[in-house]
């Protein structure tokens, strides 16, 4: 594999970086959707995140790398009773690419062709969804993804389980992953059902500041010329950020939210008219992750404000008579609620 560009070397695009970190701290948030112009570093950021994630413990030899400390939600083999014998090892968090042209059998898993051909044996070969379990599933150009794959993903994302009933195989295995999608809205819209699945949504724009653009081009050029040296220059920063994520992951479950904050978040969502409760829940959870990243013990309105935009942007009902973008509406509502 080619060496990815370091996350900490990405110039600007704070909202996107922030959203990705928050999603990494709390995998249950529902992932991140990154929409924006070409050449703004969408794919670069996601691939950079992959190498930043701290390692995790997994059952050795399990194709779904189940968590040895938890039997709930593990695959059939790992949730059995012989817990004492399970050997575990540390593995990097999987960040799996779902390429546009991927065939359905490769995504859900299929018959192991080699064994079928050679031995006439029926064996299941796990697919991308199995590989992405407990990790990230990244779809570049998510808006171009074919409909039948989208349906399949929605199904699995909702249930956290991949059920394969095909070619005489009958397999079910856990598949919980953070969905990260990126795309260029000019090339097509995202289906509303899929849009709704994403916890956070980020719009990336070309930076207007010349100095920033110069720096971005400079760094990318330096990286292209000598990836190893460039990565070494940012190794310390990367390590620092990795530690920060690890610490935040531990801290997140302990973070409090005061009732007053909950009330204000509810007010915010009412003012914006977001559909359902998912917006509120996601916003509160995301605010907790923001607080954890900042080593705070309580999530306050400051943390809410920091993540309100990506958490709510894609949940606003579109009012045909309102010309202002959803960003402006959220900002206004925030100002009102914050008083």
């Amino acid at each position, binding site marked *: 594999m080619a060496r990815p560009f370091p996350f900490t070397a990405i110039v600007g695009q704070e909202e996107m970086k922030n959203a990705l970190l928050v999603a990494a701290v709390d995998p249950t948030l529902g992932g991140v959707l990154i929409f924006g112009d070409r050449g703004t570093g969408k794919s670069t950021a996601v691939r950079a995140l992959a190498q930043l994630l701290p390692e995790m413990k997994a059952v050795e030899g399990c194709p779904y790398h189940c968590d040895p400390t938890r039997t709930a939600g593990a695959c059939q083999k790992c949730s059995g009773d012989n817990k004492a014998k399970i050997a575990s090892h540390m593995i990097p968090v999987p960040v799996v690419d779902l390429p546009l042209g991927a065939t359905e059998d490769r995504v859900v898993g299929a018959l192991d*062709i080699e064994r*079928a051909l050679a031995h006439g044996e029926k064996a299941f070969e796990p697919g991308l969804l199995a590989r992405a379990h407990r990790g990230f599933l990244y779809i570049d150009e998510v808006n171009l993804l074919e409909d039948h794959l989208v349906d399949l993903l929605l199904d699995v994302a909702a249930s956290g389980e991949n059920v394969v009933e095909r070619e005489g195989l009958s397999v079910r295995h856990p598949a919980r992953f953070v969905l990260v999608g990126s795309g260029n809205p*000019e090339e097509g819209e995202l289906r509303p059902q899929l849009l709704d699945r994403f916890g956070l949504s980020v719009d990336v724009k070309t930076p207007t500041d010349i100095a920033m653009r110069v720096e971005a081009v400079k760094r*990318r050029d330096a990286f292209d010329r000598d990836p190893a040296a460039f990565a070494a220059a940012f190794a310390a920063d990367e390590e620092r950020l990795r530690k920060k994520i690890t610490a935040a992951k531990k801290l997140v479950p302990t973070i409090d939210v005061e009732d007053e904050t909950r009330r204000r978040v509810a007010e915010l969502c009412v003012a914006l008219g977001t559909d359902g409760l998912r917006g509120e829940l996601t916003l509160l959870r995301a605010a907790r992750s923001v607080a954890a990243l900042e080593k705070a013990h309580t999530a306050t309105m400051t943390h809410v404000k920091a993540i309100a935009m990506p958490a709510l942007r894609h949940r606003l009902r579109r009012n*045909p008579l309102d010309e202002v973008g959803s960003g402006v509406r959220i900002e206004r509502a925030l100002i009102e609620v914050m008083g």
Partner: protein
Amino acid sequence: MADENARSAVIWKDALVAADLIAVDPAGLGGVILRAGPGPVRDAWLARLRAGLPKGAPVLRAPTDVGDGELLGGLDLSATLSSGRTVAQRGLLARSHGGVLIVAMAERLAQTPAAHIAAAVDAGEIVAERDGLTICSEARLAVIAIDEGLEDDDRPPAALRERTAFQLDLRGLTHRDLGMQGGDQPRPDITAARSRLASIITPDSLIEVLCTTCAALGVGSARAPLLALKAARAAAALAGRDVISDEDSALAARLVIAPRALHLPPAQAPDDEQADAEPGTPEPEQPPEDQDSDQSPPDQPDDDKGDVRTLDDTVLEAALAALPPGLLAQLQVNAQRLRAGQTGKVGEAQNTVKRGRPIGARRGDPRSGVRLDLLHTLRAAAPWQRLRKRTIAEDIARPSLEIRRDDFRIKRFRDRKQTTTIFLVDASGSAALERLGEAKGAVELLLADCYIRRDEVALIAFRGVGADILLPPTRSLHRAKKELAALPGGGGTPLAAGIMAAGLLADEVRRKGRTPTLVLITDGRANVTREGLGGRAQAQDEAGIAARSIRAQGLRTLLVDNSNRPEPRAGQLADDMGALYLPLPRANSQMISNAVRASAPAAQAVRR
């Protein structure tokens, strides 16, 4: 004539330089969009490129309908079956590693293969999951996308245009132009340049100059300055320099940044520029009128301007000089494409199982009227044969090939969505009765057109206090005519209500998987608010807001102004809607019909 020759000479010289630059750094520069028909010019250019590439570097061709399997690789079925183990086959992208991949008729390349090629150019490797294989191999290559499109909006996918350094247009050249360069000049030593590439020094200010130039020309992507930088570096290596010179960066700006320009630098009025660009093009060494001497009005607010001025202008000038004649038209095409987003003039694309261009196969039941993909079905059944033979009882006569329902693969196609034309007719008193008659006549003619195209039509009229959907989307010409004939006129003009009703209907149409088009026939004068109350000013405001929401929807719209003389208000309304404006005083039906047809020729072209 002499001018024309000089121009051709410059274009050809630049094209040759671009070929050499790509040969120096194929993967770094990503390739070229080569706009040229078949013929000696294109062949000569490709030969020049091939001559520069390292010995043994692959030069492969991908057809325009290249499949994922061919591009990415996958299972080699015959080898797999004969050997009894999985044998992988390398795809075109992997096999082009270190060389170039030529894509023929790239303007017809679908988005999926374009995305694969783009990903390979970006990452220098391909990673794919296919046929039960994980494919991962190096793919550092340049793409030569040959664009034979005749129309300006018939271009190779944006994903490719974004990643290739150069866009060359060789359409105007003939074989006579080739002799002037090439033979008599010594070919640069590309091998030496390639080895020198890594040690070229980049002056600090250069990146800033390139970024500023991009900003001044409205080029947003960070890839543009990066590609320009790499082009400048390759140019320096080619010229035998150790440091990138101004000449190199000017060349890079001309070849890389100029073709991407979206607008002209704010310091210059567009009209002056067009005048400059036309005679200025043949002589790129001679910058067009010195920018510093032409004073721009001081009250014009602009952030970039200061930066542009203080920096070395030669790079920007080089980029400007390269802008072709007919530039304004091109800029408009660029900008329109930007604004229009996905709503092109053709129906949006969608995947179907019945007709259109084939885009592969999927598992499914062939009985429900879809087409069986025999090859993929056999492929799916193949690995199972040994297993199935084993389970069948001995006494049953065995078929030599066992195919079960699970194996069925059906063909999938990509088709254009059908169009629904929504007519929004002002039936108020202000559109006096005779003109209402004209409008009705026009709609009737259009209905006939729609019928031929198998489009759906819908009819909304607004008068009195609100808007009514007289005819929900239908293909019934008869019903449409009946409703239309019965449409009464008179009363106030609730324009905002009408526009909003049309917007909602358009949304509904879109949700049903069709592409809506709106034809609004009005004089633009509103006097009833959305609440159904009188009040000209408020009604007009509301209409403006509703119109802007139509624009936000990206709805393709035509506004036919049927007032006695062209109304500024109707023009304003058309602007607000992003609509095509047709002032037709005393519009007659045939004229409206012709206009609508002219505005949507593609809709006819697509439906074959």
